[in-house]
């Protein structure tokens, strides 16, 4: 029995935070704009407008680096209440097109249009309609990818950013994926990428040329998943996102770490990534967990629940560094460090200003 191809859209707003500032504050339109942490401190860039990106500015870069690259840029601290309001309108608008919508963050969502085209002649026409509605009602631009799987829809929305629409028909999926570097596939982090590079596997086409067994042998269980993805086989459903309970990242080192100061630095960068992930989802959390894995694969976690969610990445990093002191790190080499924030709640749109800046 041949199934009808799925029709999945991935909608990704273009430089969402910065775009909202540009829309509402005309004097910011022509200048390079960076939203994020304090450029004189250790914050990171949340979003940069395209004028700023021409200078090499991008998300997750330390704000201080961004300032050095582009001193004339205007630096803004995030205004979460406004982003959240914009996000609510965006999601409301998208849900008019499908009841199967899965917001990924404040400015990004998957839509399943299979059997849900209503009055539109094609998925492409529906995607165009979404882009027009976002432009009219929000005054912002969105990039949309259309494909028969989440994986390809997401890669497609990124293809012609900003303000683009990329449709990948089912027959073109293998060709679309073939030239992409392996790290574009979900699940391929720095460690997996390194393993693949050492095996001279650089592109999705290279992966496809391997048998499934070879990839499993090379990478373990994820090898099988990658083999499927390389062929565009991804049948993950689009649904209302289950309530997220935690958000975390971890990193495996090329060489086991013994130096506490170096591990503190790594935790700082993990804290920045987690903080940014929470920010774009409009969440905060009070329980901080550090995970450490020793060379013998013993894995320990140390947690602390705070009275208030850490407001800045720096505060999160400080807690993580204290938790690291409660592991054997420093005495025993460490091969993996992870940082997770749980006990999540919606971040407050009303912001209490601090006394000490």
């Amino acid at each position, binding site marked *: 029995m041949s199934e009808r191809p799925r029709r999945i859209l991935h909608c990704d707003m273009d430089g969402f935070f910065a775009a909202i500032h540009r829309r509402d504050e005309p004097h910011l339109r022509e200048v390079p704009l960076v939203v994020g942490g304090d450029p004189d401190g250790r914050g990171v860039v949340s979003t940069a407008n395209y004028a700023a990106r021409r200078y090499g500015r991008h998300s997750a870069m330390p704000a201080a680096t961004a300032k050095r690259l582009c001193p004339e840029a205007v630096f803004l601290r995030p205004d979460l*209440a406004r982003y959240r309001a914009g996000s609510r309108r965006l999601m409301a608008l998208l849900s008019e097109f499908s009841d199967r919508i899965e917001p990924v963050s404040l400015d990004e969502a998957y839509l399943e249009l299979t059997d849900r085209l209503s009055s539109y002649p094609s998925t492409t026409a529906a995607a165009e309609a979404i882009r027009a509605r976002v432009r009219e009602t929000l005054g912002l631009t969105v990039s949309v990818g259309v494909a028969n799987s989440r994986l390809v829809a997401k890669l497609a929305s990124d293809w012609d950013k900003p303000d683009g629409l990329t449709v990948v028909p089912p027959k073109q999926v293998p060709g679309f994926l073939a030239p992409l570097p392996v790290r574009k596939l979900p699940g391929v982090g720095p460690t997996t990428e390194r393993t693949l590079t050492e095996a001279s596997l650089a592109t999705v086409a290279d992966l496809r040329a391997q048998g499934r067994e070879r990839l499993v042998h090379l990478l373990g269980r994820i090898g099988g998943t990658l083999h499927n993805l390389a062929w565009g086989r991804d049948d993950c459903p689009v649904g209302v996102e289950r309530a997220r309970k935690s958000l975390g990242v971890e990193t495996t080192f090329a060489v086991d770490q013994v130096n506490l100061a170096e591990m503190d630095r790594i935790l700082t960068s993990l804290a920045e990534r987690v903080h940014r992930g929470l920010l774009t989802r409009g969440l905060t959390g009070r329980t901080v967990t550090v995970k450490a894995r020793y060379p013998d694969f013993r894995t320990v976690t140390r947690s602390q629940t*705070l*009275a*208030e969610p*850490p407001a800045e990445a720096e*505060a999160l990093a*400080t*807690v993580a560094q*204290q938790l690291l002191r409660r592991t054997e790190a420093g005495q025993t080499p460490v091969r993996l460090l992870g940082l997770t924030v749980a006990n999540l709640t919606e971040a*407050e*749109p*009303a*912001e*209490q*200003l*601090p*006394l*000490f800046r």
Partner: protein
Amino acid sequence: MRIESSKEELLAGVNPAASVVETRQTLPILGHLHLTAEGEHLQIIGTDLEVELRATCPVAVAEEGQVTVPARKFLDIIRSLPEAAPIQLSQEGERIQILSGRSRFHLAGLAPDDFPRLEIGDHQSEVSLPQEALKGLLERTSFAMARDDVRYYLNGILLEWTGNNLRAVATDGHRLALMDREVAAAPEEIHVILPRKGVQELERLLGDSEETIEVTFTPSHVRFQLPGITFATKLIEGRFPDYRRVIPEANGHQVVVDRATFQQALRRIAILANRKTHGIRVAVREGTLVLSAENPDQEEATEEVAADFSGEPIEIGFNVDYLQQAIAALPDDQVLLHLWDSQSSCLILPAAQTTPKYVIMPMRL
């Protein structure tokens, strides 16, 4: 050890000593009280390794000695015994027998020599001051201390003793409380941070009397000698932030309101403030201060308070808890607020005095 005493006399020592014992301990013995019968007294010690409280009560000592008892159980037993009957404590090895009227208890003690003592170190300076002076300083500032903040130096009160002035400062990074009090001169300048737990215990222990207490500062600890009780606490090592920088000059737009009226209005408006943010709007205009609150359920409240104010209207968002706590701690009948704009802190004072001072940062609503 064998002693006899009354419920009232025992409780006077057991109550404060047991109150410093944490409900969850890292070491079993930290859940115990240390008892020493000597001369005509029973000394009771409770500790959590950060603070230590020693209480002395007069008892009839039949046999001197030392034991430990599980603090919570001991307190609960003494508390629930009848008032009239005398209480006898005696030791059988490490077991402690409590006899009173027709009640009999046996508690399991631990080796008294293992009980940890707080080493407070070489003393640096000794001063004395009236109980009510210290109590007043703590009571009017302690609400602004941080709780479990990673900036650990905020989880307490800064005490600064310079010349004849003793100053207490507390801040959680959003609001700040400062109070000055004229006292006898200290032999040298003192700058210490009392930890939160020590502050809370002291507030319980201190009375409103003018009786003086002796205070001993060492580089790492401070000890307070009260009648019948010695209380010592570790100090927080670390640098308190430069609080002077965030206290504005008293040159803002001035608003004077009646304290009781303002306090009642705040209490009512707080009912409908956003439950999570506690944010309310404070607007001042000619002759009036208007408080308003709305919550996500679309409920709203407005309160008007007569105010002595003339000038351009100002509107600022505040956490209603911070306003309530500051207003509740003010001594005067009239409140003086200095306001600038919606991004700047406000300064709150009693209308007729220069201390205490409360600084509150606004909320962006």
